[in-house]
């Protein structure tokens, strides 16, 4: 179509005075790929509306189609979009609770360790130290025999 005519139709469209037929003409022009530079800014409007036309929508959803945004685009492909979003929120909340449970479980014992009573803790520490000391000295028992050896050699040599 002629550029002048198109310009007029665009004006009419912006005044919301176009007929369906005229809108079809506009769509055809803008999707043709050969759009005049000063009209290029209007191209996306008509490209969008051509998609909207193909879709089957009920009265409810039709109202939402007036303003395009990313969430709308998603729901065009997937009518259940809104419901899915709610589901994933629940999943996130559930996993946070799960993590909290794990973190809380990590410390079954108190910050004092195995015992809360200092007297008992003291006793157990003493027991442990004794065990360590004994084991450290258990090698020394054998060293004690060296004295015996010295004694016997002394006896022999004398």
């Amino acid at each position: 179509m002629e550029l002048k005519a198109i310009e007029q139709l665009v004006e009419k469209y912006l005044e919301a005075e176009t007929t369906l037929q005229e809108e079809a003409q506009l769509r055809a022009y803008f999707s043709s790929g050969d759009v005049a530079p000063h009209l290029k800014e209007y191209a996306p409007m008509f490209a969008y509306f051509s998609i909207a036309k193909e879709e089957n929508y009920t009265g409810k959803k039709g109202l939402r189609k007036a303003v395009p945004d990313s969430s709308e685009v998603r729901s065009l492909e997937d009518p259940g979009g809104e419901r899915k979003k709610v589901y994933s929120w629940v999943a996130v909340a559930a996993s946070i609770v799960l993590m909290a449970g794990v973190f809380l479980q990590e410390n079954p014992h108190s910050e004092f360790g195995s015992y809360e009573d200092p007297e008992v803790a003291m006793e157990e520490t003493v027991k442990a130290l004794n065990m360590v000391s004994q084991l450290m000295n258990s090698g020394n028992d054998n060293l004690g025999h060296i004295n015996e050896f010295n004694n016997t050699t002394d006896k022999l040599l004398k």
Partner: protein
Amino acid sequence: MKKLTFLLLFTLLPFIGTAQAFDKYEGMKEVDAVVITSKMFKLLTKIDLNADDPETQQYIDLIENLKEMRVFSSKSSYVRDQMAADVASYLKSNSMEELMRVTEGGKTVKFYYKPGKSDEFVSQLFMFMNGKGDEPSVILNITGDINLSQVSKLAQDFNIPAGKELENIETN
């Protein structure tokens, strides 16, 4: 699904990051665990312990300088094997020096340490006893300012049989 696996990995992180490799033994029912945290040792030093005799005082002097103590012992052969493996990898990843080894009647006791502020002191004392039969395997780890000569003296001076309770300690 990918998100879930990521979150699961995240929950495992606290276990990976725990201070010591042996913490898992604390929860096992085949393991007798004695864990004394630094909080408890600080509490012990604050409490005015009335030592009736110098014997108890020696212990108190030692204990005052301890930071943390963990002892895990088990007679279960399955746990024993696990312990041996865990100790081997712990020694590989922690640079400790060998203090001594004692082998008696089939059981081996190994002591390792990390040096302390002077020759007499160690900042960490680690012991692993590989028990056989009725004797348990024991992993012991003590951190702090440990006076080794003092520890060694305990058994020499007092000749304490295993399991004796000390009734001399009174607390205010």
